[in-house]
C-alpha cells in the first residue's frame, strides 16, 4: 500500500482525469475490461485530439494557402499554428519541422533528401543491431544507391547500443552518417545521447573534414521523454505523432535549420506548393522552408490533431510523463521477474528521469510457449500486448529469439494494468500445462 501512496503522490497529474480522456479504455474485449499495453505500436487518442479534428472538419475545412476566402484563411492559420505548436513541443523552430506520415517516412526523407546527395562511395553509414527495420533497410538502400557502406554497432550486455564500439568505428574517419534509435522499440533501452554526441564531436570527421551527421529514430523516445532538438546536438530527429497520442498517419522529421538553408537537405517529394517558379526546363523551390517540404495538399486535420496531442502532453509535463513511465517499467520488471517461466530481455532497470536506462516497454520470453500463443491467451483476458519480432529481425536472429512478447506503456496505464498482465500470464501456464 505504501508503494501505491508514494507513487500517486509523486504524480503531478490527475490520473483519473487522464483515463477519462480516453473513451476507448472503457471498452470491453472478450467480455473483460480492456488493458491496452500495445502502446509502442500506437497509442490511444484522447477526446481532446478527436474533438479538435472534428472541429476542424466541421467548421474550418478548406485547402490551405490557395483560396481567397475565409475558410481557406482559417485552414491556413490552423495549419501554421499547428506546425508551430508541434515544433515547440520538440524544442525546434517551425521551419525545422517537416510533417510526415510516420517515422519510417521521416527516415526515408533523410535518405532521399540528404544521404543520396551528400554521401560518397566508400563512406560509412553507422547504425546498430537493435534498430527497427525502418532504420535498417533505408540505409541498406542508400548504400546501394551511393556506394556507401553500412556498418552495425554492437550491443552491450544490457541491451544498449555499445558506444565504445562507436568510438572504435569513428576512429576510421570514414563515417559520414550515424543513424540510431533514441529508444529501442524491442528492448526499451535508452541510448546515452550525451556521450554519443560528445564522441561524434570529438572523433568524427570524415575525409572532407566535416563531422558525420547524426540521425535519431525517436519513435519510442518522443512519447516518453522530453525532447529538446535545440540542445540535443543531432542533425535529424524522426518520430511518430500517432505514438504520442496524435492521430494515425502523423509523423515528424526535424532537420537543423542550417542544413535546410544551405540546401544540403533537399526536398524529396515534388509538385505543387513546394515550388517557387516552374519553367519547362528548370524549376526553383519555395524559399519558405516549411512550404519547400510540403508538396501537395497537406493533412491539416492530422496536424491539428498532433498539435493538440502535443499541447495535452505539455500540460502534463514531459518530465512527469517520463517519471510515470519509468515507474511502470520498474514495476513491470519487478513483477515479471518473479514468474519462473519468464526471461526478461533488455535492460533490467529503468533508471531515472535524468539518466533513463529503459523506458516505454518490457519485452520477454515465456519458456516453452511461442509469443503468439502468449499474446492470444492474454487477449482472451482483455490484455492487449504485441508478439513477434517487432520489426527487429536482425536483433532476434542474432539472439536466436524466435519471437518475443512486449508490453508497452502510456500515460493512461497504471500499476493495476501490470497486475492484470501478471494475472493473465497465469492462464498461459494453465493452458499449456
Amino acid at each position, binding site marked *: 500500500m505504501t508503494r501505491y501512496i508514494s507513487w500517486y503522490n509523486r504524480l503531478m497529474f490527475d490520473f483519473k482525469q487522464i483515463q477519462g480522456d480516453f473513451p476507448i479504455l472503457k471498452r470491453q474485449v*472478450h467480455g473483460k475490461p480492456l488493458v491496452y499495453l500495445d502502446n509502442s505500436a500506437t497509442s490511444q487518442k484522447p477526446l481532446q485530439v478527436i474533438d479538435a479534428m472534428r472541429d476542424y472538419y466541421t467548421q474550418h475545412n478548406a485547402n490551405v494557402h490557395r483560396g481567397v476566402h475565409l475558410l481557406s484563411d482559417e485552414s491556413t492559420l490552423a495549419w501554421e499554428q499547428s506546425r508551430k505548436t508541434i515544433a515547440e513541443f520538440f524544442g525546434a523552430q517551425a521551419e525545422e519541422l517537416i510533417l510526415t506520415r510516420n517515422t519510417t517516412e521521416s527516415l526515408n526523407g533523410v535518405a532521399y533528401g540528404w544521404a543520396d546527395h551528400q554521401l560518397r562511395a566508400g563512406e560509412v553509414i553507422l547504425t546498430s543491431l537493435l534498430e527497427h527495420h525502418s532504420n535498417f533497410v533505408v540505409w541498406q538502400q542508400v548504400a546501394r544507391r551511393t556506394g556507401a557502406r553500412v556498418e552495425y554497432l554492437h550491443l552491450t550486455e544490457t541491451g544498449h547500443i555499445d558506444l565504445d564500439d562507436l568510438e572504435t568505428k569513428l576512429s576510421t574517419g570514414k563515417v559520414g552518417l550515424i543513424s540510431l534509435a533514441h529508444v529501442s522499440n524491442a528492448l526499451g533501452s535508452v541510448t546515452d545521447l550525451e556521450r554519443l554526441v560528445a564522441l561524434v564531436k570529438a572523433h568524427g570527421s570524415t575525409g572532407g573534414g566535416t563531422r558525420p551527421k547524426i540521425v535519431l529514430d525517436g519513435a519510442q523516445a518522443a512519447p516518453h521523454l522530453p525532447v529538446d532538438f535545440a540542445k540535443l546536438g543531432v542533425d535529424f530527429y524522426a518520430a511518430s505523432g500517432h505514438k504520442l497520442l496524435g492521430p494515425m498517419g502523423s509523423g515528424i522529421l526535424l532537420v537543423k535549420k542550417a542544413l535546410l538553408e544551405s540546401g544540403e537537405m533537399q526536398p524529396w517529394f515534388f509538385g505543387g506548393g513546394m515550388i517557387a517558379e516552374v519553367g519547362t526546363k528548370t524549376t526553383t523551390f519555395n524559399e519558405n522552408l516549411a512550404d519547400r517540404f510540403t508538396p501537395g495538399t497537406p493533412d491539416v486535420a492530422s496536424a491539428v490533431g498532433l498539435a493538440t496531442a502535443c499541447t495535452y502532453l505539455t500540460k502534463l509535463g514531459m518530465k512527469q510523463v517520463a517519471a510515470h513511465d519509468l515507474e511502470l517499467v520498474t514495476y513491470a520488471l519487478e513483477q515479471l521477474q518473479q514468474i519462473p517461466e519468464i526471461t526478461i530481455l533488455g535492460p533490467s532497470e529503468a533508471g531515472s528521469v535524468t539518466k533513463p536506462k529503459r523506458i516505454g516497454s518490457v519485452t520477454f520470453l515465456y519458456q516453452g510457449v*511461442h509469443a*503468439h*500463443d502468449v499474446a492470444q*491467451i492474454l487477449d482472451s483476458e482483455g490484455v492487449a500486448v504485441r508478439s513477434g*519480432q517487432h520489426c527487429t*529481425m536482425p536483433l532476434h536472429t542474432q539472439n536466436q529469439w*524466435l519471437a518475443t512478447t512486449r508490453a508497452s506503456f502510456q500515460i493512461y496505464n497504471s500499476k493495476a494494468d501490470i497486475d492484470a498482465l501478471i494475472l493473465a500470464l497465469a492462464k498461459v501456464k494453465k*493452458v*499449456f500445462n
Partner: protein
Amino acid sequence: MNDLSDLYQEEILAAAKEKHNFGVMAKADAQFSQHNTACGDKIAVQIKLSQDKTIIKDLKWQGDGCVISQASISKLSQVVIGKPVATVNAYSEKELLKLLRLKSIAPGREHCLQLGLQALKKALAITI
C-alpha cells in the same frame, strides 16, 4: 471470433506437440521453406511424389513456431500423404480450419494457420 478454448483445445495442443511427420527426408523431390516475417516462424517442407508426379508419396517438415502453425502443418502432413497433388493444391483456409476443428480464425492468426500449407504448395509448384 474463436473462443480461446477452441483455439487451444487438446487436439490442437497435441498435434503441435507430437509434430507428425517432423524430420528430414533423404532424397526429396522438392523442398520449400516458408518464412513468416511478422513473427519469425519458419516451416520447411520436403516432399516425395509418385513417378508421374500426381500423388504425394511422403512428406517431412521442420521448423518452429506457435501452436497454430505447428498444429496446422502437423495435421496437414497426416492427411496429404497419399493424396493427389491436384487435390492438395486446391486446399485453402477452409480445409485447414476443418483439420483443426475451428469455425474461424482471427485475422492476426491467419498467417500462422497457412504457413505450412504455403510451404507445401510452393514445394509442389517447383516439382512441376
